[in-house]
């Protein structure tokens, strides 16, 4: 309550001109609340002493956020603008004139480029789904075990492994399950048809950083499931299955979906692992962009790379548009 009552005074403080009258208003009215009794007699004093200072502090404090806004505007907005501009315009090499065109975008949605987009979406969806299930199982095992040591170990390991994407991960798997990998030789996996440099192989590698990520995301949510809910369900005669179906899963649903979407996003954006692992044998949009950018395909493909980048941003943006409201909703439930 005290924080709730201090926020309005903070909020109205820096508003221009009317600060003194506005400030005493909200601070004076909620006096009946117990918490505010000490505040109520300090508030006028504070205002009298620091009213003018505070009004002056308003704009100056606003300035502290300016470098960040300017920086993102320049270092993020500029490349993004260039990407957008390049994706929808075409420059005539002879005349130098630029014209608006949908050609690059439509080319990025055809043939091999469309195949790579679909491949990326498929791989991300499959790995995110499997990783969500496995992550929930592991997190639930940790939560129900109540061993603090196990919990700390799993959380630390997840924190490290979730960041263990990229190049080192690819090499660890090449050494393990690659053609001359240790496990491949021990288990003679090649004769069983195992190939690390394929869709399945890539999925197995992706799970290595997606599962820990899911554990990190879902563990707080599972902690938020109160034992009282389970007891209440049991008292009402529900079995374990019913409890999960009607109580736990509905409460967890936003977190689960949010986690899935987050995993999808990070699998979708992953490039380094795939680049170091499969080169070009699995069609992925990130690899196609890298190829087009470094001129490996054809000269003049840069604009298609930009258009593909735009496609990726649109898909990732869609994913985030689902994720953020879900996260807010689950945060409301699992306090």
């Amino acid at each position: 309550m005290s924080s709730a009552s201090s926020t309005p005074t903070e909020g109205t403080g820096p508003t221009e001109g009317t600060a003194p009258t506005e400030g005493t208003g909200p601070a004076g009215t909620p006096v009946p609340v117990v918490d505010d009794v000490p505040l109520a007699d300090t508030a006028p004093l504070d205002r009298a002493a620091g009213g003018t200072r505070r009004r002056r502090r308003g704009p100056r404090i606003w300035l502290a956020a300016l470098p960040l806004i300017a920086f993102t505007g320049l270092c993020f907005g500029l490349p993004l603008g260039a990407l957008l501009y390049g994706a929808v315009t075409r420059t005539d090499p002879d005349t130098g004139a630029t014209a608006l065109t949908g050609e690059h975008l439509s080319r990025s949605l055809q043939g091999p480029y469309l195949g790579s987009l679909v491949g990326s979406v498929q791989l991300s969806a499959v790995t995110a789904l499997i990783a969500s299930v496995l992550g929930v199982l592991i997190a639930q095992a940790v939560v129900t075990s109540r061993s603090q040591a196990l919990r700390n170990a799993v959380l630390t390991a997840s924190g490290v492994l979730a960041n263990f994407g990229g190049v080192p991960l690819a090499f660890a798997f090449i050494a393990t399950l690659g053609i001359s990998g240790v496990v491949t030789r021990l288990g003679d996996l090649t004769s069983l048809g195992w190939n690390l440099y394929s869709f399945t192989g890539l999925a197995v590698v992706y799970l290595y950083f997606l599962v820990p990520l899911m554990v990190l995301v879902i563990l707080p949510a599972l902690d938020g499931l109160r034992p009282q809910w389970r007891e209440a369900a049991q008292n009402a005669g529900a079995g374990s299955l019913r409890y999960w179906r009607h109580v736990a899963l509905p409460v967890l649903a936003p977190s689960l979906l949010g986690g899935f979407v987050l995993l999808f996003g990070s699998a979708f954006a992953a490039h380094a692992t795939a680049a170091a692992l499969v080169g070009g044998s699995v069609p992925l949009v990130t690899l196609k962009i890298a190829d087009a950018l470094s001129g490996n395909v054809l000269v003049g493909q840069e604009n298609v790379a930009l258009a593909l980048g735009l496609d990726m941003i649109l898909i990732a943006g869609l994913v985030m548009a689902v994720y953020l409201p879900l996260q807010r909703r689950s945060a409301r439930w699992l306090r």
Partner: protein
Amino acid sequence: MAAMTPSAREAAPKPDPDAAPAARPVGPRRRPRLWRGAVLGLGGAYFLVPLVASFVFTVHTPGQGVSFEAYTALLSADGFAESLALSLGLAAATIALALLLAVPALVAVRLGAPRLRPVVEVMCMLPLVVPPIALVTGISTVLRWGPEHLSRTPLYQTFLAVQNESFPVVLVLAYTVMALPFVYRSLDAGLRAVDVPTLVEAARSCGASRSYVMFRVVLPNLRSSLAGAAFLTLALVLGEFTIASLLGFRPFAVWIVSISGAHARMSVAVSLLSLIITWLLLLALSRAGTAPTSTPGGARAPRTSRTSPKES
């Protein structure tokens, strides 16, 4: 039926009551123990096998026995020291820049400009929507403008300086953009845990100067989230491959890939080492982040609570 099963299950294993904590019935706990063991065992195996196998791969050559050459040859390997130094330098610069930008902005938003909060939040979270590979296409487009359009202007020098081979500032800028969401989340969580306006008002009314408030009151309270933000940024920069390789620079991750053709064993050894280094850094930072705040925090907490009653 559904009402019968749990009660029957509950009744059966009651003889061993000390296995069950007070809140939980015994029956449903016994089966979970089985699947819990299976899940944790399988999960542990999946996560441990690649690490162990990588280690075996680096030290054991079939037919030749065990040798640690991959590790001993590392230090003298061509480009190892330079690329690692470059990556660490980039990481330090990125951490400094990201924190310098984000901390004042977030504290300001807490203190006096709540209307800016959505703007700052969107600014910090937007880079999440743009995958690094898309960001680098944009960056390389912008960098190409330099020679194409600006070669006669003084701005061109800036373009060249930013792409300096020995310390590519453009990478610092790009990494800072990529790190902002993580830094924002970490700092926001930290700021949420302390009542910054009250702390600042208390310190100010005791006569503390503005910089004193920032460095001795606000920042120490944020120590663990600052450490978390720094760690995430460090891990991000050390492992970053996409942007650096496509812009043609050669920090650590790019170097690992470039030697993998000729020295497969060494590249795996370096990968393992980088994981271990990350792990150690995480442990060190989490200790540095939590331990000092918990010990002097005990001393600091009474101090702040002493100042706030004085104010009232």
